[in-house]
């Protein structure tokens, strides 16, 4: 026989100002099976919780309804209190009298009546609640980090340093990411390569880190603590164990005119190549798309010149499966290229370049060895224009967000230019200068005040070429909307940061949600910025939204801590609010008929097949079975199941039905 306790909270006056709490407690107290009912000023306070605990013990309660604020606020509090009093926490329900009643209605009888209805509904529900036990699953203490940019590197190192194994997967031939392309970094103007390279080397040498470059994640199965990941190691056409990295092949390769990705198309590379001199690993790969041998069937110059005979033209891709317990996604971002901008010539003008191209021009290791030269004719630009917010904050272009990093790097670009071309003139068209960050504003001021960068507040309407010059037409809004026309030698667009190519496919492969811009979605914008909605998968860096280096590194370390915390336990405890398929006595075994339509509605692949067999192994029946580790408890399968064979703990058919009945009928 159920013995239910009802605890009506006044929440100071938050509830009692509009709801007659005493009447609620009194009325509900008259319900069948309600053994105890009271109201109190603050149920969540220590005395309030003590009151509940003592009532549970004294009245031997089999379920309680705390009628207070939103369960999203205090359900854990009261469930914990119930557990402390020896009551299974899932026998505690909360009626939301504050957010859903007292705060939104006038003080009158109808409001109190509604409160009574809400409490009664939960009383009837809790009567049929089941005591649930937490689910425990083992943890595989190896992490997978996807993406070898600065965020991935940082995460991998941090996790590895806690003593756990890490697999780092990078799709290009070298780790380093966009940071390795940068010349100097704001706000200190220290050389990007100089601070990054040691970290790259550390990754390569760390005993806990296994590095797979030129590799991609193909598929993911399993759940937090127990993932199985499929990694495709693309063929490098090379035996890495034998290759010494001498680089002879790269110099002899006859195919030399392939646009260099690392140089953002401002230079060329051969078909067998190392992306950049400091690459890790520093061994070449053959780009099969451009290699003469793969295209025409003959050449093999590299094989001939290789002193160690390390070239393997017939080397296949290798797909490996690895057991891991957690994942950090650090796949980074990309930028819009100039061809995205019709008003700036659709990328037709060679001297309208994007920010990353400028980084390469300014980089000492870049195609011009650090000299700022026009791509069209190699001349030093005398007059350079930077356009901030190229694409960003422009809903008409489908990018309403601020790309965050452009204000700072544009200031940096202007400074770098001025430091190299002292007599040159640098102008920046900007919408607002967003320089929140340590030493950021000072940095921008320096650009303006010490390097005389001409900041023009306004947008650029069009850029066109005339007689080899670029005419930049814009507006100066600080001069009352005065049209401005600058005849420039070179224009740098601070193009919008966007999701990396392939992000959507990867998100789908990992079953992680992503936003409308294809950036990976965090579990909560404020309180869970590092987690995804899929337990055990975390985010680091610009794959979530454009970020600068310090932010990326911070988040990477944050993600690493999340992983380390997960790995600090041998077993995981999960809330048992998961689905289950009923089991009955043989010969039925379950009312499930095995149509498996539920499999296709499950977003988590949590529905498996279970065979019932005779002793000699003949299958009698195959029915659905829920993998409790994967199920997140959405219940979409429950509503689909025609024979009502699946149900959801905490929200069972019987409970939901009872709630509807209790809400609408007299008790």
């Amino acid at each position, binding site marked *: 026989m159920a013995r239910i306790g009802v605890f009506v909270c006044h929440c100071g006056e938050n509830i009692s100002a509009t709801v007659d709490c005493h009447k609620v407690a009194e009325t509900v107290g008259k319900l069948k099976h309600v053994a105890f009912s009271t109201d109190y000023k603050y149920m969540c306070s220590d005395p309030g919780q003590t009151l509940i605990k003592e009532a549970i013990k004294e009245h031997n309660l089999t379920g309680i309804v705390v009628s207070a604020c939103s369960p999203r606020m205090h359900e854990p509090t009261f469930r914990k209190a119930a557990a402390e009093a020896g009551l299974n926490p899932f026998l505690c329900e909360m009626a939301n009298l504050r957010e859903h009643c007292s705060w939104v209605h006038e003080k009158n009888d109808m409001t109190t009546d509604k409160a009574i209805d809400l409490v009664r509904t939960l009383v009837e529900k809790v009567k049929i609640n089941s005591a649930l036990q937490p689910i425990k699953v083992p943890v595989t203490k190896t992490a997978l980090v996807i993406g070898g940019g600065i965020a991935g590197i940082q995460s991998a190192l941090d996790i590895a340093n806690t003593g756990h194994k890490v697999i780092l997967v990078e799709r290009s031939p070298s780790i380093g990411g966009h940071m390795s392309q940068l010349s100097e970094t704001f706000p200190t103007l220290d050389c990007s390569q100089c601070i990054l390279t040691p970290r790259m080397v550390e990754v390569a040498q760390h005993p806990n880190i296994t590095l797979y470059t030129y590799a991609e994640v193909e598929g993911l199965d399993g759940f937090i603590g127990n993932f199985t990941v499929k990694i495709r190691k693309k063929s490098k056409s090379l035996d890495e164990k034998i290759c010494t990295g001498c680089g002879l092949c790269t110099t002899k390769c006859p195919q030399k005119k392939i646009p260099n990705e690392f140089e953002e198309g401002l230079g060329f590379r051969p078909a067998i190549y190392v992306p950049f001199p400091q690459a890790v690993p520093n061994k070449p790969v053959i780009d099969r798309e451009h290699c003469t041998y793969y295209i025409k069937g003959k050449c093999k110059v590299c094989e001939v010149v290789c002193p160690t005979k390390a070239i393997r033209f017939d080397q296949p891709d290798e797909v490996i499966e690895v057991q891991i317990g957690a994942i950090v996604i650090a796949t980074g971002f990309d930028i819009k290229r100039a061809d995205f901008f019709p008003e700036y010539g659709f990328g037709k003008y060679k001297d309208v370049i994007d920010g990353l191209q400028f980084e390469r021009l300014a980089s000492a290791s870049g195609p011009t060895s650090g000299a700022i030269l026009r791509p069209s004719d190699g001349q030093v630009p005398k007059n350079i224009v930077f356009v901030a917010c190229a694409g960003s904050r422009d809903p008409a272009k489908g990018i309403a967000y601020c790309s965050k990093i452009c204000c700072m790097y544009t200031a940096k670009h202007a400074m770098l230019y001025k430091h190299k071309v002292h007599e040159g003139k640098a102008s920046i068209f900007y919408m607002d200068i967003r320089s929140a960050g340590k030493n950021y504003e000072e940095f921008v001021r320096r650009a303006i005040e010490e390097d005389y960068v001409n900041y023009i507040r306004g947008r650029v309407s069009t850029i066109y*070429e*005339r007689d080899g010059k670029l005419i930049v037409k814009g507006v100066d809004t600080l001069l009352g909307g005065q049209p401005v026309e600058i005849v420039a030698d070179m224009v740098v667009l601070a193009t919008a940061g966007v999701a990396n190519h392939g992000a959507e496919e990867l998100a789908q492969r990992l079953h992680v949600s992503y936003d409308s811009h294809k950036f990976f979605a965090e579990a909560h914008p404020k309180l869970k910025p590092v987690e995804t909605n899929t337990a055990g998968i975390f985010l680091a860096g610009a794959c979530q939204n454009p970020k600068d280096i310090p932010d990326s590194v911070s988040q990477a370390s944050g993600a690493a801590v999340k992983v380390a915390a997960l790995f600090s336990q041998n077993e995981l405890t999960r809330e048992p609010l998961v689905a289950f398929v009923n089991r009955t006595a043989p010969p039925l075994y379950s009312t499930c008929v095995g149509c498996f339509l539920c499999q296709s509605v499950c977003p988590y692949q949590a529905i498996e097949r279970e065979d019932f067999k005779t002793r000699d192994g003949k299958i009698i029946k195959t029915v659905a079975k829920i993998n409790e580790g994967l199920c997140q408890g959405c219940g979409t399968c429950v509503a689909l199941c025609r024979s009502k064979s699946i149900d959801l703990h905490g929200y069972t058919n019987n409970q939901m039905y009872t709630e509807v009945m209790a809400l609408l009928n007299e008790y």
Partner: protein
Amino acid sequence: MKIGIYPGCSLTGSARDYNESVFALAKAFDIELVQVPDWNCCGATAAHNLNKELSLSLPARILATAEKNGLDEVLVPCAACYSRLAVTQHELKMNPELKNRIGEIIGMDYRGTTKLINVIEWIDAYIIPNLEGRITKPFDYKVACYYGCLMVRPNKVLNYDRAEDPQTMDIAMEKIGAHPLYFPFKTECCGAGLSVSRTEIVAKLSGKIIEDAEHRGADTLIVACPMCHSNLDMRRPSINKYWESDFKLPVMYVTQAIGLAVGLTAKDVGLQRHFVKVNIS
């Protein structure tokens, strides 16, 4: 083949040349253009600055009349008229309440079923596909296609070509053997909005367009809007005065250029009516 046509005031007045070339071209391609009967002013340029209901009612009446007369497709050669009609159609589609009110005002049943096409769309749909074997005299000139503002904007409403860098006219020109130039001024403002009140601004803005086209070696500008044409052509003396130069670059309607290419005479397409002499025939 029967298509409706809404000429508007320009085509019966200052842009008779345009009108003649449109009809001549239509005739050459066996297209019967039927005027929307009892048409009225489209409301450009004044109405939409003064009275919203008026600015919608005027075009709505034209459209309703077209509907009533079974004209499913109506060609609107004047870019300003086209813009007014298209914007009205869009606004009334988006706002059924407004649609009802305007219907009451004009006292007609307006449904919004008429398909409006501008002259380039018309050429694209009915002329270009039938060009094969019709070019008697390839238009072997360097041309700068000038689209102006009303044909492509607001892009959300018109959803026609790419607003920043339209291409259709250039492609049409290539088809008749012309050599379209890279022309960054193709959608720049000619100053039409100020063509009566602030003529010096018109001279400045229009002059820039002509100057750039001439600078790039164009033999002629190609336009599809009577307003653009009058600013670039009729106002040439004031432009030359403002710029202290002597721009001689002719300004032709797209229909005129195609007309010549398919063997129509200069007179057929009304070239003699231009202020700036056209040395192309």
